[in-house]
């Protein structure tokens, strides 16, 4: 049986196609201003990659912020449900999932079968989401990969409050003016976002293993900082940004 999951994220749209419980295609595009068209295009790309035709797909489930907007989908599931299902497939030992997307972060507690037990989330504020990293990289005038790289070379703590991404941007600018090393600023920025996310995640019980997913999970500096703040090892699956779409595809087959 072939099914597809579409994750309609705030910043990117991801598609995963699953055939008989195996991932056969993944594709991703920036959401842009025409999300329905982007979803269509991303799905077509995945279909091509899988070497199947549109008619072979038995069911399409959407998830993510824009999940209700797709007319060609059969149904939708919440990101929380999709995340738990997706991670259970990839890393079955995981009981706590932290998902940091572009505009939203979630903490999810799940059982051995990938069912959600509890969750907490922040979708009101950029200070605990991927948008924060991007706005800081602009303030530092570094690309995100470079910001991550130099962050690992930091030797000192830089003072940064960073309760708000807009305020943090001004803070970063004045730190640069006072000749604080950009590596230390980058490190402080990553530490700040991790600390915000962790305080949100602590509203649910944190049980091992803990996994970090979503686009921000590719940021090794944040993974490091999360380990420090939560005091536990953190697993990151391969291609962490596709976990929600994968979960949706798996649920479509269920």
């Amino acid at each position: 049986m072939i099914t597809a999951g579409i994750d309609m994220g705030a910043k990117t749209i991801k598609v995963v196609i699953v055939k008989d419980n195996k991932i056969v295609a993944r594709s991703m595009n920036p959401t842009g201003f025409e999300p329905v068209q982007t979803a269509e295009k991303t799905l077509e790309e995945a279909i091509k990659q899988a070497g199947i035709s549109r008619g072979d797909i038995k069911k399409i489930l959407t998830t993510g912020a824009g999940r209700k907007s797709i007319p060609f989908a059969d149904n939708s599931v919440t990101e929380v449900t999709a995340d738990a299902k997706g991670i259970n497939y990839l890393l079955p030992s995981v009981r706590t999932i932290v998902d940091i997307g572009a505009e939203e972060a979630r903490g999810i507690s799940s059982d051995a079968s990938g069912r959600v037990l509890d969750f907490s989330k922040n979708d009101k504020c950029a200070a605990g989401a991927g948008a924060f990293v991007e706005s800081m990289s602009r303030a530092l005038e570094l690309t995100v990969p470079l910001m991550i790289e130099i962050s690992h070379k930091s030797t000192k703590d830089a003072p940064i409050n960073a309760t708000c991404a807009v305020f943090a941007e001004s803070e970063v600018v004045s730190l640069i003016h006072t000749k604080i090393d950009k590596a230390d600023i980058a490190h402080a920025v990553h530490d700040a976002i991790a600390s915000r996310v962790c305080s949100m995640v602590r509203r649910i019980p944190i049980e091992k293993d803990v996994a970090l997913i979503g686009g921000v999970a590719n940021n090794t500096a944040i993974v490091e900082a999360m380990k420090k703040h939560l005091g536990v090892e953190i697993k990151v699956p391969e291609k962490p940004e596709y976990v929600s779409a994968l979960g949706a595809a798996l649920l479509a087959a269920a």
Partner: protein
Amino acid sequence: MTTEFYRWTENTWKSPDIDWRKGQTITCGIDVGSVSSQAVIMVDDKIYAFCNTRTGSNSPDSANKALSISLKDTGMKPEDIQFIVGTGYGRVNIPMAKKAITEIACHARGANYMGGPSVKTILDMGGQDLKGIHCDERGKVTQFLMNDKCAAGTGRGMEVMAELLQVPIVDVGKMSLDVKEEPEPVSSTCVIFAKSEAIGLLRSGWTKNMVLAAYCSAMAHRVVGLLERIGVEKEFVITGGIAKNIGVVSRIEKELGLKVKPLSPDPQIAGGLGAAIFAKDLLLKSRKTA
């Protein structure tokens, strides 16, 4: 040169009819805020001069700049000032100040001076924070509430929107009122998300004026939410830079069903003015004990 749309007008004022040399007390309040700094010079009971300027990267320099601009063409030197009080976000870092007083106390005192004893509720809409303050007829704070954790509803938030829409910030209020009908407010709380929302609205065919209207009305709504937690008693005044944005002020009035009492000469100097009044009190007290 690229236009800096976020730049608001810096202003300075000097009394034409006060001879400061005849004054019994010459005091000054310096308010170093996160975005703007003010110096207000008082001679006896009157405002003699003030200036309102942008805060630089460090507090001592910003305080110096504000003081020297306000002293320009007065013949007064910093040493002629008998007592200086510092206030605002950078108040502990103002070298020439003999004392630092919180901006909450200073805003209440300054608003009481400008608006009179009938002022009971003050909304300070600053560069990076938002405060609701209750005071008595002498300008003494009785209660306050503040948000300094989030840019929503602050001057910085408005600056970000002005830059995004490429509209000079001083025109935002007027333009936001120039719409056929009031649009739905911007739904995102976070300024970063509101930016993406605004871009989406422009893409879907909204005019800049409509987006500004939606943003001003979201801001007014947020502020009213904070105010309602402490309650609003008449007279009600607004201090800080956003007090000059008619688009936000008129929407706050509409939501509260209450008129805002205007403050003159300048709602943005309330903190510095209050500090200058405290400085005068402290000066008189020190003379008495001496």
